[in-house]
């Protein structure tokens, strides 16, 4: 049971990290190398909230808002001018991530900070005591995925986003405000990054280089996703499970390399990503 819970929480954490990244890439074709920077903005917003005595969950909301505001500024000043130029967006978002790291360092210093330890209790799952907070992360990941799926499949916003994803010129011709929706999508992606940053704060070291180690596997999951939510979930399940199971049953030192190897093999077999398509 513990192994299953470890696998589930690993998948949940990866999903939470990946969602914002996947939305921005899937809809906007922007490889957002500043994703960890926005996670950093989120977690430091949660740190400030914690230091002002605010409840952790309020800090998570503040984190999402702070990252969204920062995302809006970045979109208006930089990203908006670089859509449809993948290489330039990579360069620009990389630069933005470095700027964010330096700004956080200037504001907060190099030292580790804290966001508190919410739900520091155990929950029994079929007789196995497990960290309540980690279980809550799995639930949040599931809620995010289901919510996003419903949004994309059953709402007008989702329909519009899918139209932009499929054919921007046609969408523009039909009177859809493409630039507004692009900006909104980038802001939502950044808000999700900030949200993820704050949520993972209680389990990670919080310093200006926050989440850098988390993002390598996240990018692999996004590549595997093939721009579909189902592919994203499947990618997270495969990579999260491989990481935990290899670390448990073999040498953990090689588990990261094995994760990369599995991703490469899958991309070789499914170059367009892990998506189910009707014939």
């Amino acid at each position, binding site marked *: 049971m513990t192994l299953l819970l470890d696998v589930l929480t690993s998948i949940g954490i990866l999903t939470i990290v990946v969602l914002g990244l996947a939305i921005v890439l899937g809809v906007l074709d922007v490889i957002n190398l500043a994703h960890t920077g926005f996670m950093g903005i989120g977690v430091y917003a949660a740190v400030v909230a914690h230091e002002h005595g605010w409840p952790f969950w309020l800090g998570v909301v503040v984190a999402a808002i702070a990252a969204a505001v920062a995302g809006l500024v970045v979109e208006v000043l930089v990203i908006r001018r670089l859509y449809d*130029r993948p290489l330039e967006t990579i360069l620009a978002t990389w630069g933005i991530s470095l700027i964010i790291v330096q700004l956080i360092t200037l504001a907060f210093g190099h030292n580790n900070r804290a966001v508190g330890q919410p739900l520091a209790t155990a929950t029994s799952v079929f007789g196995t005591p497990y960290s309540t907070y980690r279980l809550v992360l799995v639930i949040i990941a599931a809620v995010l995925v289901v919510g996003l799926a419903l949004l994309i499949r059953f709402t007008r916003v989702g329909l519009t986003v899918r139209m932009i994803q499929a054919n921007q010129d046609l969408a523009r011709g039909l009177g859809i405000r493409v630039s507004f929706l692009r900006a909104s999508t980038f802001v939502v992606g950044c808000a999700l990054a900030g949200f993820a940053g704050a949520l993972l704060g209680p389990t990670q070291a*919080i310093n200006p280089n926050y989440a850098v180690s988390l993002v390598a596997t996240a990018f692999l999951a996004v590549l595997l996703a093939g721009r579909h939510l189902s592919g994203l979930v499947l990618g997270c399940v495969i990579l999260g499970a491989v990481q935990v199971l290899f670390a448990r049953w073999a040498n953990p030192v090689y588990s990261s390399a094995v994760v990369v190897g599995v991703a490469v093999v899958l991309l070789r077999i499914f170059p367009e990503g892990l998506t189910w398509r009707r014939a």
Partner: protein
Amino acid sequence: MAHSTPTRRTLAALTATCTTAGLMLSACGTSSPEASTSDYKVGVLLQLSGAGSVYADSAQAGTKAALQDVNSSKKAGVRFTSVVADAGADAQSATTACSRLIQQDKVKALVVFVPGPQLLACNTLAKRQNIPILSLSSGAGNICATNLTGFGLVPNQQTLPVLDDLIAQGKKKWYFFGADYSTPKTTISIAKPYLASKGGTTVGESYEPMGTTDYSQDITKIVNAHPDVAFLNVIGNDDVALEKQWAADPRTKGITRVDILLGEGPAKALGSAASGIWSSNVYFSSIPGSDNDTFKSQIQAAGLKDSPDINTYVSYLQVEALASAVKSAGADGPKVISALGKTDITGPLGSQFQIRSGFSYQPVYLAQAQADGSFAIQKKSDPVDPKLACSSAS
């Protein structure tokens, strides 16, 4: 919205890049503005960027306080000035920074706070010019050179006192977990046979690569081995993540944690998640006594907002030891190197600090983290022989 022209887009990208480069370069180095040719210029090499930058503030404060002390008390017989350079996060960056300090700034000695690979890279340049290097790290006690002096503890100096104490408490079953890196591996390779020689048992041993973020499966492995003690030997930010996840896992209750690599700053940030962790080192800010109170005041006057930690203490010792060597040997590189090898000074805690064969001998304190993340001193041990991996310096 009108489409931007390619030129404008390129310009925007270039602007972002240039701004970034400007911000990065601004952190590359600073120097004392009033240096003159008769001064003894000290190069301070530390990680101002990258993951290792978490130690920069405390180390710089120690160096600054010691420079003030050396100059105001005329301890070196010559005025010390300093130039700071960013070693970055890799050996190439360290080589560039070190080269600048030696070739351009013409420093006469180097005080360094970098991991083994960066230290080796820098020493390649320094050794050629007989420039003494005073380092916190000496790798796992296996980086030796005639011009290199290690001021921190080597693995067996730091590990054996805490092993002795916990074995005496009846904690005989140990699980060793570490980062897949030379220092943890050396530390554990020393600890295991020592534990066996004292009647203890190793119930498990495993490693994770640097940069690991999820330790749930490792914690499960450790818990399933039912140890009395989990010896956690992970480095830097990974260590903070591990300790947070350990503390949040209900299955770990009742297992004693030893983490000799956990600094005071990270422990403070961990707060209650650090509670109960055993550590050992030559300095903790909670060491009782007026000497430490004076030292802390001195460091805070140098601009450190937080309490000093091991990095502050060692950086202070480095400059004081260098001053002592320069006082007795003059500014000549080989003579200073020779004098450093016989350093015998009174440290800021009032105890004797000695350097022999390039490595330090100093008392070791055992401490246990409290609910607020501070360390309470439990015991003071006599200096431990380093038992070096390299018996003679090349």
